[in-house]
């Protein structure tokens, strides 16, 4: 079946009243759980699994895909408004998004996230329909050596969030790398830095750390430094995006989507790396006029790019699932188990043996995307109103929200202790002008890079040249070197020539 007849068959099936109903329900549920920190799409779909006893396979998968896409839309909302990321893909969105909200630009930030999600989701879904089988074969050519090089490239992005002092920034990165070491080492099965606490065996959750460092740290810092008892209300400002906002967002949307999709397709890619790279690129590519907004009042490019990358990567994750039956994320793993409860064995032959179901599912992704943008844009005004709450109450609310969310996912007191210990550390980091974002980046990249490196070295029998003898790996490393040294060398060159005063 070629793509066009597949799509027309799929749309024919998906556009029935019942199936549209499932899509709408899924989108609604997904948006709701995306807003709540902690509860992700994987858990929600797991809870919905019992419906597979009663509902047809088509209906159930349309519902699940709605939840999956919806969670990606909703995830950015709390990142922007409350500095409380709901899942790891929207951590980077919080960097600029929360700053925009604090400076009266919550509306445009939410708009650019929603529209960016729509554009990237659509591009990602087009990618699934037309490129799926091709890109997945390319992605399989990447081994641990290439993934390690990609992570080295991502480490360069830390430079974009280091702040004024490289020493302080690198110290924060080091803290993140140490936090990433906690737990059982995958390659040897030995616990590291767990101090006998069983809850630490599986490491610390990166979303928990991000919430502690961003939201709890900020709230505690304000409580500490906010001496005057004056009631202060944050400016909400105009909601819609201005013409200038549109102009500034279009580039990042498409660049973010182009970055995100391939990373999603990669079996060990994920949504975090492309959001970091997108943030780095947008910060480097922004017009000089707006450069000062990054890290101060919040730049719209820094929301549009990473948010698009996140959504395109989420779409990309479905490619290895549908074309090869590979579960490369927790959500994909649960969807695969749902296939099995219908007696469908997900695998490389899914596209041929279950063509109708697969194409209906793809068609419903397009529909879900449209529904989500229609559902979310009117909500922007409603969400932004949260900021009208006076600052002390707002921050108290954020603390309650973060505490309940943390305890709610794991029922674990240990997680609460981690949340507040890190929150207090973050409070002091703010006081002494240490950036907190490098901690999170170190924590995400550290364990991934360590495992990729050790896997690559096991395969090469300890031969370090594997990273420079594999062509793709050496190209990525060269890019990393250029990204790290290029701007400095260019600056030196330009000064010598007198191009810059």
């Amino acid at each position, binding site marked *: 079946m070629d793509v066009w007849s597949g799509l027309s068959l799929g749309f024919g099936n998906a556009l029935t009243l019942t199936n549209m109903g499932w899509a709408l329900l899924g989108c609604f549920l997904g948006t709701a759980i995306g807003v709540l920190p902690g509860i*992700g799409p*994987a*858990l929600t779909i*797991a*809870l*919905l699994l*019992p*419906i597979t*006893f*009663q509902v047809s396979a088509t209906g159930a998968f349309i519902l699940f895909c709605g939840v999956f896409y919806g969670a990606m839309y909703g995830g950015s909302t709390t990142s922007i408004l409350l500095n409380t990321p709901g899942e790891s893909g929207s951590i980077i969105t919080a960097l600029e998004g929360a700053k925009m909200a604090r400076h009266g630009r919550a509306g445009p930030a939410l708009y650019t996230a929603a529209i960016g999600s729509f554009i990237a989701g659509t591009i990602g879904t087009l990618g699934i329909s037309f490129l799926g089988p091709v890109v997945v074969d390319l992605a*399989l*050519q*990447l*081994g*641990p050596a290439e993934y390690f090089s990609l992570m080295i490239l991502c480490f360069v992005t830390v430079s974009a969030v280091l702040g004024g002092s490289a020493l302080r920034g690198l110290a924060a990165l080091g803290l993140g790398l140490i936090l990433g070491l906690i737990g*059982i*080492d*995958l*390659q*040897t*099965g*030995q*616990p590291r830095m767990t101090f006998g606490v*069983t*809850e630490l*065996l*599986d*490491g610390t*959750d990166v979303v928990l750390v991000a919430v502690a460092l961003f939201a709890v740290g900020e709230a505690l810092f304000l409580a500490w430094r906010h001496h005057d008892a004056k009631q202060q209300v944050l400016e909400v400002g105009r909601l819609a995006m201005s013409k200038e906002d549109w102009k500034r967002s279009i580039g990042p949307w498409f660049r973010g989507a182009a970055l995100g999709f391939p990373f999603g397709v990669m*079996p060990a890619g*994920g949504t*975090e790396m492309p959001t970091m790279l997108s943030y780095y690129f947008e910060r480097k590519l922004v017009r000089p006029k707006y450069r000062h907004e990054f890290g101060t009042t919040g730049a719209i490019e820094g929301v549009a790019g990473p948010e698009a990358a996140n959504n395109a990567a989420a779409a990309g994750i479905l490619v*290895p699932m549908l074309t*090869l*039956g*590979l*579960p*490369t*994320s*927790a959500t994909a*793993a*649960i969807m695969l*188990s749902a296939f*099995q*409860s219908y*007696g469908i*064995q997900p*695998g*490389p*032959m899914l596209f041929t043996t279950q063509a109708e179901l697969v194409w209906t599912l793809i068609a419903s992704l397009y529909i879900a995307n449209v529904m989500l943008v229609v559902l979310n844009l009117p909500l922007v005004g409603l969400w932004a109103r949260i900021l009208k709450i006076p600052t002390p109450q707002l921050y108290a609310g954020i603390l309650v929200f973060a505490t309940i969310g943390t305890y709610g*996912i*794991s*029922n*674990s007191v240990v997680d609460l202790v981690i949340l507040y210990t890190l929150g207090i550390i973050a409070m002091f980091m703010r006081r002494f002008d240490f950036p907190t974002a490098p901690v999170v980046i170190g924590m*995400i990249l550290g364990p991934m890079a360590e*495992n990729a490196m050790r*896997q690559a070295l*096991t*395969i090469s*029998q300890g031969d370090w040249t594997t990273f420079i003898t594999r062509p793709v790996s050496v190209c990525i490393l060269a890019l990393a070197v250029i990204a790290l040294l290029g701007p400095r060398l260019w600056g030196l060159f330009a000064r010598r020539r007198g191009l810059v005063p």
Partner: protein
Amino acid sequence: MLSRRSALAVAGSSAALSFLSGHVRAQGQQRFASLSVFVPAGPGGGWDGLGRAIEQVARQAGMVGSFQFENVGGAGGTVGLPRFVSQRRGRGDAVMVGGAIMVGAVLANRSPVGLKDVTPLARMTTEPSVIVVPASSDIRDIAGLLAALKSNPGATSVAGGSAGGIDHIILGLLLKSQGRSAKDGSYVAFAGGGPAQAAILGAQVKAGISGISEFAEQVKAGRMRALATTGATRSLDNVPTLKESGVDIVMGNWRGVFGPPGLKPEDREKLVKFFTDLDASSAWQEMCQRQGWDRAFLAGSDFEAFLKSDEAATAEVLKEVGLV
């Protein structure tokens, strides 16, 4: 991040969803008004799958009114296990799903709480492993792989799940059978089935070991070549078992159910009876077939004896690999 904890706890999931179902209950005797199932792993994995399969069959047969699930994932079950032991002590309506992976994890992590602290109820299923090579590999059969492991184990990289798990243990036993030490092997641990399968499909490694259900479709599609399975009898057509290939290894990833500590004898009896009847039902047998599980029911003292021998065998291999 896939490898990170997905420790999730939710109660009343099925109750909340029953409005969606409007199910017709088959006639059957209700044994429990509600049963709480503790899954020491994230949703979507093998233990979670077993728990939810029990739910599906028992609810449709009307044997249990409603189910509550709690997932506390991580570290091969050793994060969830202590919590089950401390929070459900003595409760006659609480069970935990567990299995072979937990036996190894308790040993490798030196967890103070082990399977000795819970009440074994029944072994339900088992899943043999399969040893595969990429389709493009020049290794044609298990003898070829064994020869490669014998002559140059370091260059024969093998992908599988986390270190110390069943996949790793099988590699250790294979090396031992060839007169090599388990330590000589080149084992590449991956978090989650997706990345491991991708590494094999892309021929990044020489071979791979995992549960049959994980690789079966790739083998069928001709993207991987199955060399041998580890069950007592053949699990795939035209693929020999290790035993008939002259290697005396029989291994399976068994999964079962456990009660909390301090269970009253009559409560234990009731739970064992429930699982015995569940296993005998035709709906359960259909479910196992659909999921690709081999039924391996064992209860009471037989199960306890099996647990003891499994623990001893696992400890021996882990010691040799250098993990304990």
